[in-house]
């Protein structure tokens, strides 16, 4: 498939739509649990502000040349950290039996999956050189046959979301959602073009850090519950 890159405004629209769909999922799930609209609204204020500002702070930390918060780019990983942080802080202010954290984390594979459609259309975050079934060529990009990693990420993360959503009432589902998402992200990054230039990418380092932190936190939590 040969793709002429469509830069704008598709990218922005799809990213925004994916965030809105994630918020609709959280709203729908919380409403089913009889949450008050007022509390959900307050949480969404934190959700949006934290994901945008921490997304920008993450970019400023990892790309020092971008030193202005207003014009700094929005990193998807920073946004994810912002969402998780906002859920944890909100639960500290108004303890809701970890339901808010659970649904926020369950929504992340969905948001990520949908946002990758934008990357596929625009032609960023592209795959390794590959010339078999399903390859794509970005005429205004590298102009070589490449692996359609963005679409693979969309399908795989949508699958992760659906499976985790089916088992959402299970104990430790938060743990399994994070561990499975981070592990899959780590593995799929081997199919990204960036990986050819680096032994290990920033995403992979970040995935390992997430797996270690979440593993330690949940082991400690389970140990505490047993005692």
């Amino acid at each position, binding site marked *: 498939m040969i793709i002429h890159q469509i*830069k*704008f*405004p598709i*990218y*922005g629209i799809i*990213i*925004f739509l994916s965030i809105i769909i994630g918020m609709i999922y959280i709203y729908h799930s919380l409403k089913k*649990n*009889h*949450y*008050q609209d007022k*509390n959900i*609204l*307050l949480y969404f*204020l*934190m959700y*949006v*502000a*934290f994901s*945008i*500002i*921490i997304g*920008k*702070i993450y*970019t*400023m*930390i*990892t*790309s*020092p040349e*971008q*030193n*202005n*918060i*207003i*014009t*700094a*780019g*929005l*990193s*998807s*990983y920073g946004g994810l950290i912002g969402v998780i942080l906002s859920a944890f*802080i*909100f639960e500290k*202010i*108004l*303890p*809701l*039996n970890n*339901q808010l954290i659970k649904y926020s984390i369950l929504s992340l594979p969905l948001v990520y999956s949908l*946002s*990758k459609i934008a*990357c596929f259309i*625009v032609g*960023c*975050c592209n795959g390794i050189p590959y010339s078999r079934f399903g390859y794509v060529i970005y005429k205004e990009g590298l102009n070589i046959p490449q692996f359609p990693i963005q679409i693979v990420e969309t399908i795989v993360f949508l699958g992760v979301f659906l499976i985790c959503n089916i088992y959402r009432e299970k104990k430790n589902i938060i743990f399994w959602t994070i561990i499975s998402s981070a592990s899959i992200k780590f593995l799929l990054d081997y199919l990204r073009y*960036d990986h050819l230039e680096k032994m290990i*990418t*920033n*995403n992979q380092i970040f995935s390992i850090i997430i797996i270690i932190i979440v593993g330690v936190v949940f082991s400690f939590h389970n140990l505490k519950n047993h005692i």
Partner: protein
Amino acid sequence: MFCRNCGEKLEDGDRFCIKCGTPIVQQHEIGNIIQEENNSNNQLNQLNPTVVNNKVIDNNMSEEDKKNANMLCIISLILTYGSGIFPIFSVLENPDSNNIFSILCSMGPLIGLVLMIIARIKYPNSKFAKVVMWIYIINIIIMMIGLLLLIITCYAAIQSCSGMG
């Protein structure tokens, strides 16, 4: 005792329902005050319940609570707008200014937002907290529109697509 909103079983001393976050203290206080007013005025039943509730809610906040809520809201606004001004000036004066200062300043609005939410949840009857909440809602809508415009007009600004997404 059960929550009036979702029916969850509640423990004695709970301030909020653990499932849906409905304030429990408020319900008790409203109930007690309505009972008191019932005793003193038999015509109360004919009044519009919303008006009664509003009256009760206004009288329900102690002076100390009002002071605490106002203090939280003022600190919240100072953090949000105070810290927001400095990076703009520093960038205008020196576009190459270091980003540690900018990062620290950009944490201000986040802490401010958290303080506003604490004020709204702990003191749900505070009118000042309600006004500040609407200021934040308008701000966030403007921020989202600004970000959308930034994404539309400046592709280079999307860091996630230069190897980080």
